[in-house]
């Protein structure tokens, strides 16, 4: 470093100079870079006990009533994809974030950021899909906003939704509650949403096209809560995939996890696409799956309850919570050996060979 730079640094600027000076696309991947952004900017700025739990939703008490509150933004490209569109996704994403806290979703907001030149027909289709998805999930859209930005300032349309839900008294699910011996339940095959989107973007064609799994999970959650009080926490593994959700829970709870590779369901088409593109399905986004950490004795009854629900038919017990070890999440491979399942650093990159 030059002497001039050193002298500038010694002017005791109170803000430490960050190693990376700009936002990279990888900061939005849901992996380690996203966490870095959170810890560098947002948590120090807004510090409070509710936020610092870092769950998918905030649980707040208002006049003695427990409410779940969450928000999410949707920037998916393309706007329409097999199995859904940005409108239904905006409903499901927020409903699921509420449901993962054990809440019954009640009300949604809808904010649309529209690009100049967007055809009315496109907007109409998205709004109708939004309406139908909200009706099916029995949530009401009670407030909203629209903004229009210049052509080129957004990609057709971005949507933000916030949601409020009610939580039954005494229920407390959180990522810091996992304990050694707990079992890990997954509601169905992983990777469908991410591969459906990628296949469309890359023009990949399958004999049986992969459809996004986008779906509202709150009725599945309600069935699970009815079945057992042994649920410690739940996550819907969206961006960053299953591995990022599990790594987050393991880190928050200070535990390790061992997964069984052969018990993690993955559709043939998704496996095929991942093999071809050099991607790992454990890091691919889902929009209609949940992973639950449950007390050992609750695993079998909960598994049975999940399998009775249409969105949990292919549910599996995929592993066990262990004491913290070297590398928090370990996978027992199909060959009986072990490997680490790491948190994604940034976006997965297609490999060259």
């Amino acid at each position, binding site marked *: 470093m030059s002497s001039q730079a050193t002298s500038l640094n010694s002017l005791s600027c109170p803000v430490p100079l960050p190693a990376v000076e700009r936002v990279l696309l990888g900061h939005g991947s849901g992996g380690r870079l996203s966490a870095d952004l959170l810890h560098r900017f947002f948590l120090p700025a807004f510090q409070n006990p509710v936020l610092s739990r870092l769950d998918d939703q905030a649980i707040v008490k208002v006049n003695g009533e427990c409410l779940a509150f969450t928000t999410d933004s949707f920037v998916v490209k393309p706007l329409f994809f097999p199995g859904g569109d940005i409108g239904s996704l905006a409903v499901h994403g927020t409903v699921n974030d509420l449901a993962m806290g054990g809440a019954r979703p009640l009300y949604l907001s809808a904010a649309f950021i529209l690009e100049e030149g967007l055809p009315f027909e496109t907007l109409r289709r998205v709004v109708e899909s939004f309406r139908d998805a909200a009706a099916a999930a029995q949530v009401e859209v009670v407030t909203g906003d629209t903004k229009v930005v210049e052509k080129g300032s957004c990609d057709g349309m971005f949507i933000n939704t916030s949601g409020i839900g009610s939580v039954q008294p005494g229920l407390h699910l959180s990522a810091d509650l996992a304990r050694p011996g707990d079992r890990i339940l997954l509601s169905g095959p992983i990777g469908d949403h991410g591969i459906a989107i990628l296949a469309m973007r*890359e023009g990949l064609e399958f004999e049986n096209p992969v459809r996004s799994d986008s779906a509202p999970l709150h009725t599945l959650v309600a069935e699970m809560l009815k079945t057992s009080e042994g649920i410690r926490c739940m996550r819907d593994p969206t961006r960053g995939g299953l591995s990022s959700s599990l790594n987050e829970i393991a880190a928050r709870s200070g535990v390790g996890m061992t997964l069984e590779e052969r018990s993690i369901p993955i559709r043939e088409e998704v*496996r095929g696409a991942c*093999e071809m593109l050099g991607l790992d399905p454990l890091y691919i986004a889902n929009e209609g799956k949940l992973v639950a950490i449950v007390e050992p004795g609750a695993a079998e009854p909960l598994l049975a309850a999940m399998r009775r629900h249409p969105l949990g038919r292919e549910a599996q017990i995929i592993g066990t919570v262990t004491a913290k070890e070297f590398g928090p999440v370990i996978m027992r491979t199909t060959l*009986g050996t072990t490997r*680490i399942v790491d948190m994604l650093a940034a976006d997965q990159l*297609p*490999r*060259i060979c």
Partner: protein
Amino acid sequence: MKYLDEYRDEKIARALAQEIRERVTRPWVLMEICGGQTHTIMRYGIDELLPREVELVHGPGCPVCVTPLEMIDKALELAARTDLTLVSYGDMLRVPGSSSDLFHAKANGSDVRVVYSPLEALKIARANPNRKVVFLAIGFETTAPPNAMAVWQAHREGLQNFSVLVSHVLVPPAMQVLLAAPDNRVQGFIAPGHVCTVMGYRQYEEMVQQFRVPIVVGGFEPVDLLEAILMLVRQLEEGHAIMENQYVRSVTREGNLPAQQIVEAVFEVCDQKWRGIGTIPQSGLRLRPEFSAHDAEKIFGMAEIKVEEPTECISAQVLKGLKKPPDCPVFANGCTPESPLGAPMVSAEGACAAYYRYRRHKVLQERACNV
């Protein structure tokens, strides 16, 4: 899934591992060349299944890792131009040059795009006749045919705004350097299945003769690798040194002739610098003079740059199979995929990155036990 499940089958894998254990009577050092194979070995923990006598060391077969720093710096220099679109395979974007990487260039406003095929880069050039489009053409013999095809088509169409920044490496000269080195430890090679799918394995037969070393062409699934290891162990225990092909479902002796022809038509062999190793004679490809209109280095008059690599990194010894990633004092302790100090940590297929990603728990366990 057909052609996958049977090659990941636990029973078959364990039976092969058992047979290897039965055959082995002494220590043997084997090297897989290709980064894809290293990746499989780490991902499936194949080394855990092998007897102590069989030591796997990992070769220089990650094209991203061995691309010289200078080439990344040249790509960054091009990406900084406002009239230019730089197109690349995905995993090159994270590779640091001497000061930055292409991800940061992109965030700073450079037009950097990722494609799965160089023919996509041609499409971008056709659609944007007023922009210069440069494809970062890197890789082993596997990516050489599609890269050559892109140049060939651009030449035929007279697509003047398309060029390539070439950094191609060849496997056999690198193996020869390893074998000829006085400190060589490698006694048998698993040759890279995909490179041989393109090139065949005739070139490797010459090496078997010259160095009396067994070479087996291997595939990329756990059963492929275990079978290739068994074939090598059998030869070594019996005192043979012959060329064998385990990856028969993909590789023939002659290889893919049309692919070889297009490479031969567009590229010529040249000396090439390998990151972490240095210059190896006749180990790279460059464009033939008749395609110089598509040679980014010539078009943009790029000066030769020389860059020093970090000294604490032992990557040269790792790439030559003399040391393994956990032997390095800075492994996972100053050198990580997020801030790599050397070549084998930069791409997912590099040996250090594969150890870090899949086997870190074992390395840290052992370190803790040794304290």
